[in-house]
């Protein structure tokens, strides 16, 4: 038997990593009359934990309609983008070229979605996305992509205004920002909105996507002696950060803001002690007081046992938005559905939504919550109270989408 050499180990590591990235798509051809819709949901990579619940949300919206629209059957296909731009664009092109998909929803990562949006433009297919990058409805806007999530400006304004209303003396902010498209967008507007409140940003550290060791960042934050720490990150990054901030004794002494949180999916991973004095901004919270949210939450809980967070709710609402577009257009042709979605107004799970025809941005409420102390929780998922919502759209002077373009 040969001795294992250092180079062998390095080579094997590379082979192992490559093997982990492989996916095996099923090839099934669409029937002529079917409307094929692709859900691009990650089953591997950084957002592997979210993919299955996004899939649930989308399926629930399609099932509500009996998998039919305009009297035609809907064929729902889902592919794993592996939270990587290369894999996601390849899977999208395969679904469009090989299976006749003309409507794409997803993926979950902002950076990856920007790449998928370019594919949608080139292939002339309709693309719906929900995430924190402002570029989809901003500098890289085009006729084929739509943004369901609130604008980062709307989120920043809702969070900063309402937090300062409750904590007027908390002027020294330390930011902890995920170092990719979504983090940069939200950070920019937190700083912009903060000017009106006289906020001083005593520190702003960026961390890579998938960071798990936050002790160094938290030590730095503690050294700045801030009145509040605001995190602009998501998923496991946010959970790891919040846990470390608690371990270092910052919370509950000083408040922690999770600016752009998935809500339930993140909060359930934190103990009640860690959640104390955490303030949460999110695109959806399950206690939203709208008829559509109540019906959806009831149905979701009956099916899966736990309340839905931002991810399944976004997938559900994006799918309903697309179906409303088909209804309004009375057509399944991509340009017709796009025209129908431009300016469409709906009362959905988050409340009143309107798609701005000039930017394809969803103008809608953003939610701001405060976590409950353990003693005040009525049941294990009674994490927080919604204390405010806000829907201030991005002011015209900040709008980077000057021309949405043509087909």
């Amino acid at each position, binding site marked *: *038997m*040969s*001795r*294992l*050499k*250092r180079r*062998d*180990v*390095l080579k*094997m*590591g590379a*082979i*192992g990593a490559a*093997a982990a990235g492989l996916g095996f798509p099923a090839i099934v051809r669409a029937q002529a009359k079917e409307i094929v819709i692709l859900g691009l949901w990650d089953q591997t990579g950084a957002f*592997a*934990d979210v993919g*299955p619940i996004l899939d649930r949300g989308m399926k629930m919206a399609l099932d509500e309609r009996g998998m039919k629209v305009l009297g035609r059957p809907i064929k729902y296909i889902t592919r794993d983008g592996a939270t990587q731009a290369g894999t996601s664009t390849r899977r999208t092109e395969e679904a469009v070229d090989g299976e006749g998909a003309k409507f794409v929803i997803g993926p979950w990562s902002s950076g990856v979605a920007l790449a998928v949006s370019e594919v949608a433009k080139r292939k002339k297919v309709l693309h719906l996305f929900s995430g924190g990058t402002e570029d989809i409805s901003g500098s890289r806007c085009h006729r084929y992509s739509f943004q369901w999530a609130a604008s980062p400006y709307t989120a920043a304004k809702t969070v900063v205004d309402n937090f300062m209303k409750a904590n007027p003396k908390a002027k020294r902010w330390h930011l902890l920002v995920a*170092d990719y498209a979504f983090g940069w967008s939200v950070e920019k507007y937190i700083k912009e909105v903060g000017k009106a409140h006289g906020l001083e940003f005593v520190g702003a*550290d*960026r*961390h*890579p996507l*998938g*960071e*798990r*060791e936050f*002790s*160094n*960042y938290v*030590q*730095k934050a*503690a*050294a700045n002696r801030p009145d509040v720490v605001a995190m602009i990150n998501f998923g*496991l990054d946010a*959970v*790891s950060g919040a*846990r*470390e901030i608690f*371990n*270092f*004794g910052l919370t509950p002494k000083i408040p922690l803001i999770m600016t752009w949180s998935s809500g339930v*999916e993140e909060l*359930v*991973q*934190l*103990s009640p*002690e*860690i959640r104390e004095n955490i303030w949460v901004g999110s695109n959806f919270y399950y206690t939203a007081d709208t008829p559509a949210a109540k019906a959806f939450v009831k149905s979701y809980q009956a099916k899966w046992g736990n309340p839905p967070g931002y991810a399944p709710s976004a997938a559900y609402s994006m799918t309903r938005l697309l179906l409303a577009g088909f209804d309004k257009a009375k057509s399944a042709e991509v340009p017709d559905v796009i025209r129908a979605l431009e300016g469409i107004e709906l009362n959905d799970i988050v409340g009143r939504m309107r798609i701005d025809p000039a930017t394809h941005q969803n103008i809608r409420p953003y939610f701001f919550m405060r976590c409950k102390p353990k003693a005040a929780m009525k049941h294990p998922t009674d994490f927080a109270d919604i204390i405010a919502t806000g829907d201030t759209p991005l002011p015209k002077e900040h709008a980077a989408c000057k021309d949405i373009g043509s087909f």
Partner: protein
Amino acid sequence: MLYALMGLGLSLITGILNIPNFAHGALFAVGAYLLASAAVAIGNFWIALLVAPLGVALLGLVIEYAGIRRLYAAGHDYQLLFTFGLALILSEAIILIWGPVGYSYLPPQALRGGLDLGFTFYPKYRLFVMVMAGLLVLATWLFLEKTRYGAIMRAGIENKEMVSLLGIDIHKMFTVAFALGAYLAGIAGALTVPIRGVNPGMGVDMLGIAFVVVALGGLGNLLGAIAAGLLIGVAQALVAGYWTEASTVVIYAVMAAVLLVRPQGLFGIR
């Protein structure tokens, strides 16, 4: 120190058994989940900390006896496939048993909160982990250096055939070495729980670092693994103080820099 523990366990397995153990990260995750479950079930963190790594060692024993033992003569390709497949099975088993969503577990009451060290504020539990991991590394070191069985293991790393010819049951030694490596991965995972909580992907995060530690220290060199673990931890902490964004990449930069100067690693000879 946790990096050193992980690296030491992996280095033991790589050095003595001469196999690339891609399941080492999964064993780390199993240790973490066993601790979290045992602590909740028993209601005592300290007993759970004692029991959970032993569970991983037992699992290691079974893996070596029932699987790896059959592949010693088969070549590295088969060993890689086996341990990689095992890592996937263990990760999926974690999801099946404990679910896809992670959760937090707080440090025991006595170790909550932090200490003001003057120049910085540091959580008590992290200080405990540093001391505990240090003691474990020391105990492993003493076992390997000062006991007869440790000497046999070190001899096994140098020359298996010779040890076997001296009438020592080399297969039994392989089993013990794998179980010991698994124990070290398991206790590193268990100690991590109050700091990082548990989630199904936690093993993958740690596996990469463990391989860096082994390559950096020199394959099969136990002192090298300890030194490399400490070097990476210190480099990460120092860089994070001045350039936070680079704190992850520095792990790989240190490895690349050392391997450029010493391709055999810090203390390696091959």
